[in-house]
């Protein structure tokens, strides 16, 4: 499947050439699904803003974003790609800044814009390097070129910087946790579901163009994947805000995807095509899966926030009773993101696990050790994600409402415009989870495409498809068994008394909903365990005296990469600039002195 579409386009180096190959098809699938679902959802979601704000601009940029996304993943020309890439960045900016009266929204959008644009500059360098080596600005011509290892390594490094910022790979992710909560929910869904995936697409495209990359690239990808996966989920655990938490989970999932790409690259370098296909295919499948379930989760979060007007988890609770449909759909998303069987997340994680174990058994020592680390971190990510989503689901939907202000009438009506897309996405989660063959086939096909396998070369994929089919049949047995147990339970309880009462409260009296474990206290054992990494801050809460009065405790988690890397650098630069500015204002002579010295310098430099 390689179709190229050419139009006349007259700009320097530009060439309006679109290309459809397995890689772009996979991303396009995700884009189409999510753009449509989020769009439909937006109709219902934005209704609450109607009248106060003009929605025309929002709709315009939404459509622009959709177009840009499509062009980005199909562009075959550097200029076209970069152009679409910029348009993508700008339109996302405008979508995020929708509620610009809030300073936090403005700040988030600003951060996003800067990150996106600075990343793009790295891409400029990278593409020019490639174009210079290949002598063409078209991707398919570049792919025919043999790059020298140094050039290939440099390109790869720049790609990691440029695309990594967009994708939100760990140290470059700082814009992501701010941008997602700031945007309207359907935009966050789109942002997390497909916009950040364009970064992954970019890395994939580079992997495809540069057929031979040095070995260290694979290791770097693996390490980055591990770090951003684990750090992402740890930071997610420390969050109180629903959408911010989901945003950090995007970082985690990007980590998983990068992990898969790393395995694929190692496999390709060590002539292990099966391993390579597993890695790339798993990563690509996870791209699709993540966009589906993360989209679902963000839409669900949006439905909650629309009705309760807060995303603060410790203020919510008991919504499963008032919003049963939304809570059920959210549960599906939560199960999927934890990679639990029945749902799509498991399939892609299974393939990546499979690849990691293959790498462990087949790769040379350092590769094997990294694979082992990868397995461990993936397992850890799974367990932590589980902790995190039980926390989310438990505090938001289960238990009792923590604030009396929460709506209590039963059930809250959610607009069908919002429910239908969520149902579609949840259905897709289940479909891929219970019938993985079509999507996995597509993704593994993409993986094959990435290793430049000749179309007829035989890579026996049954080794992965057979376990998958067994998994699926086991899942069906599981469902049957659950049904059987449910029937048995019903039969046993049918004739017995089933009184309804209070929860057993261990003999306490005057139990109020505020007794409930909050999300922060739920996560506390883990966040305490890694508090050095999370820069955990806790204020108050020290009880003293026999009759302690009212106490307050608050805790917050700070992003290490933001606090320790970017902020100091930027602050330093600003301070430096301020200092220069002051001296400049004070003395006019300095103006002249600059010219004088410059002249003298040029004379001394050039005339001797």
């Amino acid at each position, binding site marked *: 499947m390689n179709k190229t579409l050419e139009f006349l386009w007259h700009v320097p180096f530009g060439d309006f050439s679109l290309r459809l190959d397995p890689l772009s098809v996979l991303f396009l699938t995700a884009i189409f699904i999510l753009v449509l679902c989020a769009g439909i959802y937006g109709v219902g979601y934005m209704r609450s803003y109607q009248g106060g704000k003009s929605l025309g601009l929002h709709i315009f940029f939404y459509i622009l974003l959709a177009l840009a996304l499509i062009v980005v993943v199909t562009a075959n020309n550097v200029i076209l790609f970069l152009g679409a890439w910029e348009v993508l960045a700008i339109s996302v900016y405008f979508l995020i800044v929708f509620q610009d009266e809030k300073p936090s929204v403005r700040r988030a959008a600003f951060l996003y814009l800067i990150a996106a644009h600075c990343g793009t500059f790295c891409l400029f360098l990278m593409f020019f390097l490639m174009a210079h080596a290949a002598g063409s600005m078209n991707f398919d011509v570049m792919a025919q070129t043999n790059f020298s290892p140094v050039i290939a390594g440099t390109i790869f490094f720049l790609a990691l910087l440029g695309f990594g910022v967009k994708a939100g790979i760990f140290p470059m992710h700082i814009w992501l946790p701010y941008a997602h909560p700031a945007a309207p929910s359907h935009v966050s869904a789109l942002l997390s579901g497909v916009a950040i995936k364009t970064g992954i697409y970019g890395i994939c495209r580079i992997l495809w163009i540069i057929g031979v990359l040095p070995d260290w690239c694979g290791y770097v990808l693996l390490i980055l994947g591990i770090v951003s996966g684990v750090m992402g989920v740890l930071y997610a655990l420390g969050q109180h805000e629903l959408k911010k938490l989901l945003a950090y989970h995007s970082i985690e999932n990007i980590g998983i995807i990068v992990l898969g790409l790393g395995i694929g690259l190692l496999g390709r370098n060590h002539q292990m095509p099966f391993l390579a296909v597993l890695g790339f295919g798993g990563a690509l499948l996870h791209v699709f899966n993540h966009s589906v379930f993360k989209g679902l989760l963000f839409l669900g979060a949006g439905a909650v926030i629309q009705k309760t007007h807060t995303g603060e988890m410790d203020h919510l609770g008991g919504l499963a009773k008032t919003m049963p449909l939304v809570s059920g759909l959210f549960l599906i998303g939560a199960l999927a993101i934890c990679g639990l069987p029945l749902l799509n997340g498991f399939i892609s994680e299974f393939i990546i696990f499979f690849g990691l174990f293959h790498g462990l058994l087949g790769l040379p020592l350092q590769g094997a050790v990294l694979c082992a680390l990868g397995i461990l971190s993936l397992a850890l990510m799974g367990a932590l994600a589980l902790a995190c989503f039980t926390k989310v689901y438990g505090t938001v939907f289960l238990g009792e409402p923590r604030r009396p202000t929460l709506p209590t009438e039963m059930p809250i009506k959610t607009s069908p415009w919002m429910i239908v897309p969520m149902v579609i996405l949840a259905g897709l989660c289940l479909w891929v989870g219970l019938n993985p063959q079509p999507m996995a086939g597509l993704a593994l096909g993409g993986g094959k495409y990435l290793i430049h396998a000749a179309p007829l070369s035989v890579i026996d994929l049954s080794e992965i498809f057979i376990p998958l089919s067994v998994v699926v049949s086991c899942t069906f047995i599981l469902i049957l068994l659950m049904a059987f147990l449910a029937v048995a339970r019903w039969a046993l309880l049918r004739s017995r008394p089933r009184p309804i009462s209070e929860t057993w409260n261990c003999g306490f009296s005057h139990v109020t909903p505020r007794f409930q474990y909050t999300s922060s206290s739920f996560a506390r054992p883990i966040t305490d365990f890694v508090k050095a990494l999370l820069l955990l801050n806790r204020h108050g809460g020290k009880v003293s005296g026999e009759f302690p009065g009212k106490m307050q405790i608050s805790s917050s988690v700070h992003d290490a990469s933001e606090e320790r890397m970017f902020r100091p650098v930027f602050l330093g630069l600003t301070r430096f600039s301020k200092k220069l500015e002051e001296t400049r*204002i004070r*003395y006019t*002579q300095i103006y*002249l002195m600059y010219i*004088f010295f410059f002249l*003298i310098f040029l*004379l001394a430099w050039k005339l001797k």
Partner: protein
Amino acid sequence: MTTWIDASCIFIVFLSLGILATYRIVGIIKIFAAQSFVLGLVLIFLHAHNLSTRDIVISLGTMGLKGVLVPYILFWAIRHVSMRSEIKPVIGFGTSIVSGALLIAGAFWISLSLKLPGKPVSDLILPCSLATVLLGFMIMVTRTRAVTQVLGYLIMENGIFLFALSLFDVMPAMIELGILLDIFVAVFIMAIIVNNINEEFEQAPASVSRSKMGETF
């Protein structure tokens, strides 16, 4: 004639150096006037063998404009604007004279590798004009008052004019360019004076922002 030209050139540089050592604005203006007179003389010396009317006009024009008119305007300005005549250079007098000497040495050093085409009347014109330009520039850099900066610029401009004189027979159009620069300078001075008068009027509120705006005036 060459001796006279050489002597004038040296004198011009010496006067520029003298400005570096002067700290009263009145003194600087006087030195500048003297320098401009010498400059007018150089033109006559250069063409002593066949003096044309044009040469005399330009020479007298230079003397009149720079030697009389500009100093007069400046004196007028100082009197009317009551400019503080004490000036405080950025670097001390000793240092500025030493660096001035160094600049002169540099100008001669640069001139070593540059040979004027044709048969130059005097080989001192090029280094001396360069030195004057650099010294003028240095005065601009080291002095803090607007008037002294203008004077520095005028000195620099004198150096350029001296250089243009040496090109007189090579490329006659050059001298016209030099004169254009003179006109430019005249407008420039006018602007400063307007500026200064304006500042006098707005003295009171401006004192607040003084520290912010720098110490130009």
